[in-house]
């Protein structure tokens, strides 16, 4: 518990001093604001360059399509920000030998890993929630039509939070395995994008994490029971990967 408390505070201080909060905030929340603005301004910007019938295509956005566009951009760009900002969670500590003092004074690997995971899981959850609510506010003011409601937005944000908490656990695990942080960052990115392929296969897609994102874009339902298996699987994977990260940190040579 001592190590958990010490590292939780240290992670907060580190995130403030190294601008990690700012980078994650920009990477997640910025798109919530920029995306609807760009969609609204695009027809005006393109009107002089495209034929009238073509530019009409870009003026046909509703609240629903604006929301779905934000979800797509958040996944494509937000994932890059998250992976590259948090790729060195453990590997940087080991590589720069910053664990020598804490380990030599009896720091518990479980406390270190849990503090890191819980801290960033909370931060990602809060930022994602802020991003979704910000986006909802703007699409309501800039667009008309569509069925998207605050409940749908909260449901989608919850599914995104689960997805990114899962991604964080994968990042944490790879960061404990690989010495170079870039390797874990790129591995997680490749994994994250490539798993989207399984959304094409209806029979098995409900068992892959990217189904959470697919469900988040489905604004017709508040709750679809097909999402239950992957939510359970995601929590199991998170627990297993955090456990293996702790195990790895117990065995690792830190000097």
């Amino acid at each position, binding site marked *: 518990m001592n190590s958990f408390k010490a590292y939780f505070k240290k992670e907060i201080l580190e995130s403030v001093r190294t601008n990690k909060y700012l980078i994650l905030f920009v990477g997640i929340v910025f798109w919530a604001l920029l995306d609807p603005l760009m969609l609204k301004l695009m027809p005006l910007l393109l009107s002089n360059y495209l034929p009238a019938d073509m530019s009409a295509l870009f003026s046909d956005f509703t609240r629903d399509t604006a929301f779905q566009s934000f979800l797509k951009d958040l996944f494509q760009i937000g994932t890059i920000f998250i992976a590259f900002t948090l790729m060195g969670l453990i590997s940087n500590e080991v590589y720069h*030998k910053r664990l020598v003092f804490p380990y030599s004074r009896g720091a518990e690997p479980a406390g270190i890993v849990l503090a890191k995971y819980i801290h960033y899981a909370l931060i990602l959850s809060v930022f994602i929630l802020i991003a979704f609510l910000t986006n909802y506010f703007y699409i309501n003011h800039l667009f008309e039509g569509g069925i998207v409601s605050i409940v749908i937005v909260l449901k989608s944000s919850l599914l995104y939070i689960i997805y990114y908490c899962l991604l964080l656990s994968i990042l944490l695990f790879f960061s404990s395995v690989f010495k170079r942080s870039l390797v874990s960052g790129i591995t997680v990115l490749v994994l994250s994008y490539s798993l989207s392929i399984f959304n094409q296969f209806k029979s098995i897609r409900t068992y892959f994490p990217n189904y959470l994102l697919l469900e988040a874009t489905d604004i017709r339902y508040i709750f679809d029971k097909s999402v239950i298996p992957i939510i359970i699987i995601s929590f199991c994977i998170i627990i297993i990967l955090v456990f293996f990260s702790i195990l790895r940190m117990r065995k690792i040579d830190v000097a």
Partner: protein
Amino acid sequence: MIEVIGLKKNYGRLEALKSISFKVDSGTVFGFIGRNGAGKTTTMNILTGLIRFNQGKIFIKGMDFLKHKYKLVKLMGYLPETPAFYNYMNAYQYLNFIGEIIGCNSGKSGSYTAKLLEMVKLKKQGKRRIGGYSKGMKQRLALAAAFMNKPEILFLDEPASALDPEGRVEMLELIKELKDEKITIFISTHILNDAERVCDKICIIDEGRILLTENLSQLYKTYIQPIFDIEFEQDPGDKINFLKKLGWIENIKQKDKMISLYVKDIDFARKEILKEISKLGAVISSYRIRKSTLEDIFIRMVSKNELV
């Protein structure tokens, strides 16, 4: 206090430690001396639980280190040779962070932190970011971190390596004070003069092997070896090479006009040395017999090991 039996450590094919064994008594200063790459830091890293080992047993306070690692490391403090910190923290924040890991309550830890920073003469710079510290300042902060919560065993890896002469003297004084407080100190150094000044027991390690472990006083008695220092009026150059072939001379060190002859048999050497030196045809300006220092003993042991 510490008992190491048959400790082995391999890095791939390289045998860093080749079954080393030694004992450190409670409340003593144990000097671990050896050349760079001899295995000093590896041994310290193992004893502080930072790296694993391949074979052997370690007992600290009679407890098996592998079974009670987390309990035992809380009794230790470690000053690594090149300490790494979180550079965005200041000294107060870092020491409080370490204090929290150990389990000091924040109030106690706060006042204790100030005292520690005063002890290592960093109180003025305590609120500056560690990233802006010099190497010596980092070394002193590392000592404060190692000394947090008054450990029973203190591991110091080359503690004076980054310090200026004044800082080095202060460090030695501090070690003497800690010794008076009955703290067991395990110090690795290649500054033999420092080891001679503060250590009770000396252990010489070379190429992953322990060459000797002895109390300093006993060491002088056992390994005392007269050395003949002969100074010539002019540099004798290669002329001294023939002395190396004499069976009763163990080693020759030459520095400009001065040669030091390490002999095996003092009585025989006394009779023969001037006869042999006269064959050089060089003019002697001074001749004296001196007792060996720790440095002489170290060089002797290490060169023997090289021959093996």
